[in-house]
């Protein structure tokens, strides 16, 4: 069954098409002048202007390792982040804290801690799963490199990016 769509009845002016063209031209030239006079907010000029200062607190940038207020590393090499990491970007080589050490009760520390930033998907699961609050997603978003090896962040680089974070950690407290 054919269905006929009712066409709108056009007046002579509308049929001429030119008034509509002029109206359209008016709209586009308005946009042009607004950009020219700076009334339109245009895109950020990236390398010169950056998001850095406007980033929200919850922004998920590159994952990093942090030290506490005494400069001690927080990571205890429990490897939970390594196991939960969906793209398997994290590789940890744990080491044992020897008998007789003051911090023997901490048991393990990371000998090597690598995050492959080519693999990382910035999901933040490592931060969520960490029982020691040792890994945090900081605000660095422009992680670039010229080689694949450069894109693998080792322990030193991760601490460099991470910096100090104060907060509730039990492991390194002798009384707890």
């Amino acid at each position, binding site marked *: 069954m054919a269905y006929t769509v009712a066409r709108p009845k056009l007046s002579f002016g509308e049929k001429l098409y*030119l008034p509509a*063209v002029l109206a*359209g*031209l008016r*709209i*586009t*030239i308005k*946009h*042009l002048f*607004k*950009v*020219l006079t700076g009334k*339109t907010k*245009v*895109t950020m*000029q990236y390398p010169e202007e950056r998001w850095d200062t406007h980033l929200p607190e919850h922004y998920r940038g590159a994952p990093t390792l942090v030290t506490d207020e005494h400069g001690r590393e927080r990571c205890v090499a429990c490897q939970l982040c390594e196991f939960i990491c969906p793209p398997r970007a994290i590789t940890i080589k744990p080491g044992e804290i020897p008998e007789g050490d003051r911090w023997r009760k901490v048991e393990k520390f990371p000998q090597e801690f690598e995050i492959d930033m080519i693999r990382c998907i910035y999901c933040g699961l490592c931060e969520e799963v960490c029982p020691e609050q040792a890994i945090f997603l900081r605000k660095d978003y422009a992680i670039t490199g010229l080689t694949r090896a450069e894109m693998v962040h080792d322990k030193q680089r991760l601490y460099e990016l991470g910096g100090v974070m104060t907060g509730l950690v039990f492991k390194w407290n002798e009384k707890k």
Partner: protein
Amino acid sequence: MSDILFGLLMALIKAVGLVFVIILPMVSYTVYAERRVSAMIQDRLGPNRVGPFGLFQPVADAVKLLLKEDFTPKSVNTFYYWLAPACAMAPSLMALAVVPFGSSWFGQPMVVANVDIGVLWVFAVSSLGVYGIVLAGWSSNSKYPFLGGIRSSSQMISYELSLGLSVIPIFLICGTLNLPEIVKYQIENGWLISPIWLKGISFTGINFSLLASSIFSVNALVKLLLWVPLFISFIVFMVSMFAETNRLPFDLPESETELVGGYHTEYSSMKFALFFLGEYAAMITGSAVIVTLFFGAWHIPFLPTDPEKLPLFWGILLGLLHIAAFFIKVAILLFFFIWVRWTLPRFRYDQLMRLGWYFFFEIALANILLVALILAFAPR
């Protein structure tokens, strides 16, 4: 004999100067303008990285296009495939030969070829541009370019008709096909696009009796009466020019949303660039013809028109000013071309054909009759 050689040499210098000093840079900066204007219309900024305000972008583009791999698909008809880009580019430049782009400079009239067939030459040569597109579409041996080529040939043939017919009123009024003569008519009687023309005003003073007679006289009334069909002519010519140069809203030969890239789908590198440049050169040629026919070409109102009658320095300056005026007028029209492109959606193919054959053809014909009647019965 030496006169002929001198004339040839002058024509050569003018042609080379026009093409390489003015038109080709203008083409590349039209592309830049297109990108900037379209960006601003869409609330963006456009290319602003290369040089101040991105002004060196065309240079970067040219380098990029020259360095790209020039790939020839295996299935193409190589000879025509190579011929097509040249066929697309050359005619639009050739058509400029008869356009007077300035008054005179160092005693030389600023037109490459001052010939009596002027406008005929423009139409004849610019319609050759369709061969580039048809050859490209056909020799590519691929369905999208083929469809683009077919569309373009039928479109150009349909619009050529109204293009040619819409300017006949001008020849009826001016009585010549020679473009410099048409410009001379416009200097004496006012630009064809303007309904009234004020005479007697110059930078030395105002001649009131001449000014009054240019407003309140039978001649002024006839000019006002003739303005109506001339304005219709202008609209028809302008729209047909859009169709002829394959610009949106009539860019069906390349309509990238349905035909991939249209006739130049299979082209890459500098051959693609030649199509691209050809399109913009055709735009410039079209604008130059519109400026010559309707906007008084290089004429600046209220300034002296003959540099030869001035002292040497002022004559040279005025000659340059006239050339600048011509290309400023062309640039304004080019801006209009760009502005329209980023405003209107593309026509459907049947709408395009309908517009060409049912409306513009008839309007142009009726318009000729109207002008003929006015000229026959109006007092001279």
